[in-house]
Every structure is written in structure tokens, then in C-alpha cells.
């Protein structure tokens, strides 16, 4: 809990990040979502705006959860790592706390935007939404765990920055965050296969299911398939994260 609290406090310092993300969200929804919904085939046009808004929320959650990796580099640069390792907290508790802290703080950032999205989309079934939000927590924790794992594996701010940039470009575009699976499949079978097993697809499906946009879902049966996908994603990266973090930092050095 101490580690989680520390990461939440650190996050509130990043006002610029919060402002930037909010501007990005507004531009995506008010311009791209609105205009693109008039550009798509009639069968999709009726729901595409709502579909896209839900996808933007998941994209935001993903990029906010990744941010914990950048904190790790800042700490490494300023020598805070050695201090953290000297605390009476086990490595396992440290990485688990950071992963959960990363997930919660991204929810704090995305929370108001989820409220806006719900205002735009509407709410069909509160219980479904509750299940969906719980699953999105797992998604956020999993992405934070993934970011920590990659950060401590690469141990280079430049490499991490570029790797996460490329990964972000691929993981979002090769998912159903922006477009339904049926169109991804028509475009390329390879893209469709990657999209089917992409955690961003699981999360997008989950949020859309929770808000009642049930046309064009990818996972079958819902919500079980998406929840299983997210649970596997969360445990994989939390466990891998713990193992990698312990191994890479033991001996107390970043270099």
C-alpha cells in the first residue's frame, strides 16, 4: 500500500501529461470520431461514433498505464532506485505495488473521461458496466506490469521510449480499439489473427459490452472470453514482471 500511495502521489505532479491527454481525448472524440463516423459504411455509421469513443477510452487507459515505465527511468537517473531497494519492502511487494499503483493512477486519469464517454454512449446495464470496469482494472494493472517488465529489461531510457512508441503504434492499430474485427479480417488475415489475441481488443470488447455496444464484438462468448484474456494478460505480466524485476535489480544497481 505504501508503494501504491507513493506512485499515486508522483502521478499527480504530472499536470502537463493530464492536460495533454485530455486535449488528445477531446480532439479524437470531437473531430476524428465525429467526422470518421460520417465516412464509414452505412451499416456501421449509426454506431461508429459511440464505438470509437469507447475505443479512445481504452487507448487512453493503455497509454496512461504505460507511463509507470518512464517513472522508473527517472528514478534510475536520479539514483532513487538504490533508495527504494534499501526500504524494508520485498522486491515482490515493490513490483506488485508499482503495478497496482500504475493501474490505479491511470484509472484516476481516465475516470473523468470514462464519465464523459458514458454520457456520450449512455448506460444500458449498470451491472455489466461494473464487471467491465473491474476487468479494465486488470487490463491497466497488466499494462503497468508490462511497462515495468520492459523498462527493467531494457535499462535504457532511449530504447524504452522508442520500443514503447513502436509497441503503442502496433498494439493499438492491430486491435479493435478503432475499428471492428470484421473489417480488420477483410483487410488482412494476419492482422485479424494478431488482433484476436491482443489485450487491447479484450479491453475494448469488455468496455463496449459494459456500455451496451454489443454489435461488432470480437470475443465469443462475451464477457467470459474477454475476461479470461485479461486475467491471463494480468497474471502473465505481473508474474513475469516480479521475476524480471527481482533478477535485474538484485545486487542493487541499475547499470
Amino acid at each position, binding site marked *: 500500500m505504501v508503494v501504491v500511495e507513493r506512485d499515486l502521489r508522483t502521478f499527480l505532479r504530472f499536470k502537463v501529461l493530464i492536460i495533454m491527454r485530455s486535449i488528445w481525448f477531446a480532439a479524437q472524440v470531437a473531430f476524428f470520431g465525429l467526422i470518421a463516423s460520417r465516412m464509414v459504411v452505412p451499416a456501421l455509421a449509426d454506431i461508429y461514433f459511440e464505438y470509437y469513443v469507447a475505443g479512445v477510452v481504452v487507448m487512453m487507459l493503455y497509454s496512461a498505464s504505460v507511463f509507470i515505465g518512464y517513472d522508473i527511468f527517472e528514478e534510475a537517473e536520479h539514483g532513487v532506485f538504490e533508495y527504494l531497494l534499501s526500504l524494508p519492502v520485498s522486491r515482490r511487494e515493490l513490483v506488485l505495488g508499482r503495478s497496482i499503483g500504475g493501474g490505479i493512477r491511470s484509472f484516476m486519469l481516465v475516470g473523468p473521461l470514462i464519465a464523459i464517454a458514458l454520457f456520450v454512449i449512455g448506460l444500458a446495464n449498470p451491472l455489466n458496466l461494473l464487471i467491465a470496469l473491474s476487468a479494465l482494472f486488470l487490463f491497466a494493472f497488466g499494462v503497468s506490469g508490462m511497462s515495468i517488465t520492459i523498462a527493467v529489461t531494457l535499462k535504457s531510457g532511449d530504447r524504452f521510449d522508442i520500443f514503447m512508441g513502436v509497441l503503442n503504434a502496433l498494439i493499438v*492499430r492491430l486491435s479493435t480499439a478503432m475499428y471492428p474485427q470484421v*473489417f480488420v479480417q477483410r483487410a488482412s488475415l494476419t492482422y485479424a489473427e494478431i488482433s484476436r489475441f491482443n489485450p487491447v481488443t479484450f479491453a475494448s470488447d469488455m468496455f463496449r459490452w459494459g456500455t451496451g455496444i454489443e454489435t461488432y464484438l470480437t470475443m465469443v462468448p462475451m464477457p467470459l472470453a474477454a475476461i479470461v484474456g485479461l486475467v491471463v494478460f494480468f497474471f502473465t505480466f505481473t508474474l513475469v514482471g516480479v521475476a524480471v524485476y527481482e533478477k535485474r535489480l538484485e545486487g542493487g544497481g541499475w547499470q
Partner: protein
Amino acid sequence: MKAVLHMIEHDLRNFFRYKWWLAGLISMNLADLLIMAVVYNQMVSPEIAKVIKSYLDFFAPGVTVLGLFASAFMIGREINMEVRRQIHHYMLSLPITRFELALGRLLAGGLRGMMYMSPLLLTTFVFVGFPSLPQFIAILGALFLLATGISGLSIVTAVSTTSFEKFVTARGLVYYILFFCSSIFYPLSLIQTLGQEGVMPQAIVVLAELNPLSSGADLIRSFLLGNPPFALSMIRNLIAFSVVFTTTATFAYMKIIERK
């Protein structure tokens, strides 16, 4: 003139220090083109397809302009950093006039954009088709005007903001407004239709029409795809944008580096 060339060389050398950043940027642009545009190609309505034919062909010039914008804007980040760390005192100690200093930086920003954009433009030609020689020269000229204008805009943004956080926020605002209120992702005619229907405020429609990114992307499309048809207003918008921001940036930069 020699001093201006020295400044350009200085900034070009700096540019290649960001090779990882550039590799990331180019992979994002290519992901937009080779994944997002390929999928949207399947999604566009028959009505829009009549106008743009293929979304992939339509978006390729857009992504070229997108790349040009992001790379030409980078000079602002460096100048903001120099002003904050007072490195401009060193610049002022060089045997170079203020004007040459400002002009060199402005042109270097534009040239960096052109260099980064070249592989994207080549990819566009490979996908969409090659222009004739006069068209090619016109495209390069127009994109150079756009690149220097963007470089000027980034310098104006950089010298008007006192902290890195404010610069990043202002940059984000400029980026998203210019990207999304333009014809990079969707045809201008669609934005105009939404304006006529009252869905989109008229001010946004006017901004999209005057937006230099719209003019740059549509100029390439007019030569390669024939749609939208070429209009002199495209060149006029680019010249106006370039003149306004190169002039403002030159004087703003000269003024800011002389400030104690």
C-alpha cells in the same frame, strides 16, 4: 550566407542525434499507413469511395504531411531548451549576426522536416503513382514552404513559453487542432458538408479550409489522384502561412535571445 550554412549544419547534426526518436516516429507513420489506412480502406462508405477512390491512396499524402509536421516542429523543442538553459548566450557570442542566426535555425527546421519526409513521400509515390517532373518540383516547393512555416510556428511557440511543460502543452494543442481540423484523415468536402448541416461549427470548417496541412496534403493529392482538383488557393495558403510564421519567428527569436 556562410554563417547561415553553419547554423543549418549545426542543427542538422543535432537532428541525427535523435535517430531513435526518428525511427520511432517513422514506424508510427508507417503503422498508420500500412495498418490503419488498410483497415479503413474496407470501412469507407461507397459515397466517400466515389470521392477518394481508395482510403490508402487518400491517406498516403496525409501521412507524408503528418511526418513533415512532426519533424519540422522538433526545432522548437531544442530552442525552448536552449532558452531555458541560457545556451543562447553562447550563440550570441558567435561571430554571426542575430538575423543569420534566426534565419539559419528557421531554414534548418524546414530542411529537417524535408529530410524526414522524403522516405514517406517516396512511399506515397510507390503506392499512389509518380508525378511528372514539373508536378514533382511543385510538390517539393510547396512542402518546403510548409516545412519552413511549421519550423517558424514551432520557434514562435518555443520562445513564447517559459517552461518546458508549457511548451509541451502548447505543442499538443497546436498538433491536435491542426491534425484533426484538416484534410489529412478525411476529405475537406466531408468537413464542409458537416458544416453545412450544422454538425460542425463554421469556425472549424474555415480553419480546416485555411489549414496549411490541408493545403499541403490536397496539393499532393491533386497531382497524384486528381482529386481534389488543383486550386491556386492551396499555394496561396501555404505562402501566407510560411511568410507569416517565418517573419514572426525570425523577429521573435532575435528578440528573445537578446533578452537578459
